[in-house]
């Protein structure tokens, strides 16, 4: 049992070292995993993490020990072999990529299992491969520079540093090879070479984390934090940072959960990662389900509100010259806004925004600001109808529908451009007057 930092209680120390191992382990996986997820190669990560077992087994067979270097070499070799065979079989063997991957990695895994079964006892026990041994990390100690640290940090820390260096050094190569491999190839930045280099890193990261969390939770650490991060940001750099952070949180929560429920740390880390992923799916700003639903609702609300305004404006147009405003009952108002609670909410919003007002008799009418908005909407609508009519051979009754939809999205800028395009912008195809725009108001009056 490790006896420092001294200011922590023994229990806290246990937690500290275990979590530290978890965080470091997750970090290296998260960084490399980002590229796997972006390149749609998540399952190749799964394949490699199974296949490395064969690499470890062969290394043990050849060297009689589980020293880090031969194990690492064995794992990377098998990892590259997996990637290479998968690709070759798919290209030359005329089988699909997914079948090819399945056959290759399960066969390698089978070889690994058979070799292991032939070796008696020793370190290579199945428990470790399945469950990981991070729970006992603080107990397996080695001494480095006079300090006791968990044995697995000896492998995890260098691996994480290597991963960081790799990504920093090859930042632009990884970027272009992942984004546009065709272009990369034509530029001489071998997309193939980068692919295999990345796969080698995947194998390295996998095998170094194997002792900690076992063969399959590694996949969770490779994929889940990056997938979560992808929902949270649109920048590659931030995606990497978020992945590492989420991985770290998984380590902490995983440990806590394992202690609370008296179970295995690696498993709980995977569950914690899954939990964060679910939260992101639901609540991520911009890409989460909730925010998308809210976005849709906001749009529906805006359209309903604008529909009321535009229709009231049209009613005012049609009304006799003398009247300067049209009153409608609340019920008619709601009817104009469209069915349901969205309509009612729209009217509420409009009166809040002072675009609709009530008179003493309980009738509703447009305010000045409301009228401005209505004029702009109707202008958009009729400009668009005119544009369609001038440029496309559409029957007259086909003009209203598209204009009805688009009037909500045509702003003053696009209006100005339309005016430039049109032969004339005074009346629409049905002969109705196109209301002038705001700046046009002045310039038109000036011209007259």
């Amino acid at each position, binding site marked *: 049992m490790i006896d420092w930092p001294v200011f922590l209680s023994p229990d806290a120390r246990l937690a500290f070292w275990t979590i530290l191992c978890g965080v470091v382990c997750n970090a290296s996986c998260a960084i490399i995993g980002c590229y796997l997820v972006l390149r749609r190669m998540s399952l190749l990560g799964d394949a490699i993490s199974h296949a490395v077992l064969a690499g470890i087994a062969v290394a043990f067979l050849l060297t009689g020990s589980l020293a880090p270097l031969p194990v690492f070499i064995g794992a990377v070799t098998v990892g590259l072999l997996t990637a290479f065979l998968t690709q070759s079989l798919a290209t030359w063997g005329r089988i699909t990529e997914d079948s090819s991957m399945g056959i290759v990695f399960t066969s390698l895994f089978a070889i690994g299992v058979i070799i292991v079964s032939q070796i008696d006892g020793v370190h290579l026990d199945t428990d470790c491969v399945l469950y990981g041994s991070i729970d006992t990390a603080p107990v397996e100690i080695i001494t480095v520079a006079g300090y006791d640290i968990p044995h697995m940090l000896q492998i995890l820390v260098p691996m994480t540093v290597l991963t960081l260096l790799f990504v920093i050094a090859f930042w632009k190569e990884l970027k272009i090879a992942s*984004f546009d491999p065709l272009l990369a190839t034509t530029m001489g930045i071998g997309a193939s070479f980068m692919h295999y280099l990345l796969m080698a890193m995947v194998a390295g990261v996998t095998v170094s984390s194997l002792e900690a969390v076992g063969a399959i939770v590694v996949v969770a650490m490779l994929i889940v934090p990056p997938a979560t991060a992808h929902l949270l940001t649109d920048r590659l750099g*931030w995606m990497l940072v978020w992945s590492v952070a989420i991985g770290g949180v998984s380590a902490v929560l995983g440990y806590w959960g394992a202690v609370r429920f008296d179970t295995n740390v690696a498993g709980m880390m995977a569950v914690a990662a899954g939990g964060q992923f679910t939260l992101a799916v639901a609540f991520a700003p911009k890409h989460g389900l909730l925010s998308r639903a809210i976005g849709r609702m906001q749009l529906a609300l805006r359209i309903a509100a604008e529909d009321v305004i535009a229709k009231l404006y049209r009613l005012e147009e049609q009304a006799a010259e003398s009247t300067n405003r049209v009153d409608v009952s609340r019920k008619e108002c709601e009817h104009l806004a469209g069915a349901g609670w969205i309509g009612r909410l729209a009217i509420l919003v409009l009166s809040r925004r002072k675009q609709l007002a009530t008179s003493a008799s309980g009738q509703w009418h447009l305010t000045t600001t409301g009228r401005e908005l209505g004029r702009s909407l109707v202008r958009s609508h009729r400009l668009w109808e005119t544009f369609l009519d001038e440029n496309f051979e559409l029957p007259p009754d086909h003009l209203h529908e598209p204009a009805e939809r688009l009037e909500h999205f045509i702003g003053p800028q696009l209006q100005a451009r339309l005016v430039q395009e049109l032969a004339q912008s005074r009346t629409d195809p049905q002969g109705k007057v196109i209301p002038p725009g705001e700046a046009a108001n002045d310039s038109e009056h000036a011209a007259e």
Partner: protein
Amino acid sequence: MSTRTLASSRRVLSRMAESRTSSEPAAAPVLDIHDVTVAYHRKPVLWDFDLTITEPSLVGIVGPNGAGKSTLIKAILGLIPLTSGSVSVLGQDFAKQRKLVGYVPQRESVDWDFPINVFDAVLMGTYGELGWLRRPGRKQRRWAMHCLEKVGIADLAQRQIGQLSGGQQQRVFLARALAQNAKLYLMDEPMAGVDAATEHVIFQLLRELHDEGRTVLVVHHDLRTVPDYFDDVVLMNLRLVAAGPVEKVFTPENLRKTYGRRLDILDDAGEAMRSRVRSE
């Protein structure tokens, strides 16, 4: 059908420089495609294709669907294996001339969900000259910004590529190609599915590139605009039908050989031309 047009001159040397005086001694041709066949299993996609471009030109490549136009571009770039024949760029194998060739692929070839912004994407055009491990520095960044300005999307520099319209995406590709500063540009349907304004920008750009002495080869989808945009045209349908200056080569005869009888507009044009010739 006259003997001359049937002449199976398998090596149609495109005399692209016919109408222009060329006082240069025999410099290496910009592009030399010799006897190229590309086949998938037994089906030829390109068949005994010969084309030589001797001078910097602005060339449109047209042909029906399945004619092998994209395949031609990819064959030049070494992206697909040749069943037979050879391609040389400026006198050498393409592999040796990578830095001199710029590629603008079709928009579908890229993952637009990738988390980078417009500036980043255009900066990628400079990676080829930087080589391995070196980072883009101030010079490259300034150059990338310059290219963005040239295609008119400088204000979109910080925008995520996934949030762009079709026309904007195409301009990003173009800016990236400009950043490559190549001598030979190969573009695969750059004007497909873009709005009129973007098409105009693209065309201006192609003109400028040509004026700067570069060769631009464009797979073009719209026959009607070929005479407006290009000086030279290549008509192909698996094989080369004709190549040369637009005035000489872009005739109803050749178009019929390339496209068949599907295009009424060309039949009308052909008729009109024939009736005019007859009456003269």
